[in-house]
């Protein structure tokens, strides 16, 4: 079933891609094959694959049980929020905030999670930013202090 739904979505997306790509023609062309041929070819083949996926009779997809699936969804949202706040809050704060719930998901106690979050945030900041010269965001509010 999962494959069929995925195949359907994929088919719609490749058709949309072909529709968008149809107008990719340069004003002046110097070559027999322009910028539109390759993506259209790939999308057409993708559409064929999507149809083949929809026709597959057996499915070997095993989804995790719903409670685990909910936690996986939550983990995804946490990482997404981490990505959003990485620059704004600065590496140390964002990492500490991300670590606490993620560590809890993987069986850490509250104490371990908080300590781990602070440790990872500060430790990795020192390691990457100061030792390895990989610039990390300090966050606006810390800019004055850490420079």
């Amino acid at each position, binding site marked *: 079933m999962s494959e069929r739904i995925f195949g359907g979505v994929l088919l719609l997306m490749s058709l949309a891609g072909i529709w968008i790509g149809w107008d990719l023609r340069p004003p002046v062309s110097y070559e027999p094959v322009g910028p539109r041929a390759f*993506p259209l070819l790939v999308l057409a083949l993708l559409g064929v694959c999507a149809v083949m996926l929809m026709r*597959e009779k057996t499915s070997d997809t*095993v989804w995790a049980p719903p409670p685990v699936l909910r936690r996986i969804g939550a983990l*995804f949202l946490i990482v997404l929020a981490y990505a959003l706040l990485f620059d704004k809050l600065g590496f140390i704060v964002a990492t500490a905030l991300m670590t606490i719930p*993620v560590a809890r998901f993987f069986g850490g106690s509250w104490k371990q999670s908080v300590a781990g979050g602070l440790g990872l945030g500060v430790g990795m900041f020192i390691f990457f930013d100061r030792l390895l010269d990989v610039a990390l965001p300090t966050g606006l509010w810390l800019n004055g202090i850490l420079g």
Partner: protein
Amino acid sequence: METLSLLMQGFAVAGTPENLMIALVGCFLGTIVGLLPGLGPINGVAILLPIAFAMKLPPESALILLCAVYAGCEYGGRISAILINVPGDAGAVMTTLDGYPMAKKGLAGPALSMSALASFIGALVATIGIVAFAPLLAEWAIAFGPAEYFVLMVLALCCLGGLVGDSLPKALTACLIGLFLSTVGIDSNSGIYRYTFDLLHLQDGIPFIVIVIGLFAVSELMLMLQNAHAAGEPISVTGRLMFNTQEFMLAKWTMLRSALSGFFIGVLPGAGATIASAMCYAAERRMAGKDHQFGQGDIRGVAAPEAANNASANGSLVPMLTLGVPGSGTTAVMIGALTLYNITPGPTLFQDQPVIVWGLIASLFIANVMLLVMNIPLIRVFVKFLSIPNWLLVPGVAAISLVGVYAVHGTTFDLILGTLIGGLGYLLRVMNFPIAPFILGFVLGDMMEQNLRRALSISDGDPSILFASPIAIGLWVAAAAMLIGPRVMKAIDARRVPQEAVAH
């Protein structure tokens, strides 16, 4: 002779104090990444690549780091296979079959040291193989025109698509998604923006690192939550550490045979360490006749897969270095690393970038000696890393991944895109779509399109140029065979197995 002097130059590059240090760090990190269940060479290389780039390492040092990590992972995978019965990476699956029973019998020390030696022999044979064959292959491939190149890349994709995963439509789908994503951004020939949706950050295309980290780090975290099972306590390493003479004599030819076949399997695009170790294990088991304990802790059962998977991991560098066409997910990431440094992979690499190529090959020799030395006496140190709890490891990996993505452009956009691709990667992996063809498609997409357009420009739009030369026709035939062959074989096997089961 010329090869030898070039190799000596390579040792001069790899032997500088900085590069030796980098190789040492890479070996150490690689072994740790390899032994952690869930993280394999591709994750290790994917996570470290952006960091090497951000540290502004010169290209040869960055590649030495990545290769040392790659080599280290192949050593590390066996540790968790032997001690907790969970392969640290896919290539070590076969090592669990005899490694874990040996450890349970109190022979963890000999199992670990023998597998370390087997890994070393595998890697050594394969590296010698690279020195012997790679320059020849590169010279031959230099005659390729754009049409042959295009077909060669089709062949590489077909090999991987035909061999990995069980479903052909799924492998092709993964590959085509990768190819499509590579077309996003400005088209360098006409200056037209393709599929950028007027987003400024997409104009240069989707950064390679964003795709790699999303597919191999972010999605891995979600899979780790799904597969979170309490791994058993590692069996402690007690008693003698070294194998004895008798065990060595029993396994020496096994190691050499597996190393040789592992190398040749590795050179074929698509057939990676997993296939090599499974094939060599099965072959040794058959050759052992009646007098064996395979499955209950036979020393040859750890020697064969470890020699084979290390040999094939190194062998897979051959198509990458000589043709610029990677044969596996990990080497696809390395090709991406070259392009990050504006180095065009391909047969001219040996002529244009001898420092990089030979430095890399020399560093493989050095890294493997380091790994052998590290992995026998220091084994107890590595075992300690098995007890890193997931509650610390997973957020750590998440943070390092985002650091890597951020280091390239420093934009929130890349971080979010990487996370979204990670979500897509998770869905694909749960539905058993193989991921290696995806990354290979993405890496090869641009080169494929450019070569196709160049070929058709030469023939003024006539597609028959793609079938004009004997080389091109040969490659087309090979591609079709690779796509269909493995499945036909599987179908034949599937018919034969029930009969064998009856016979037993």
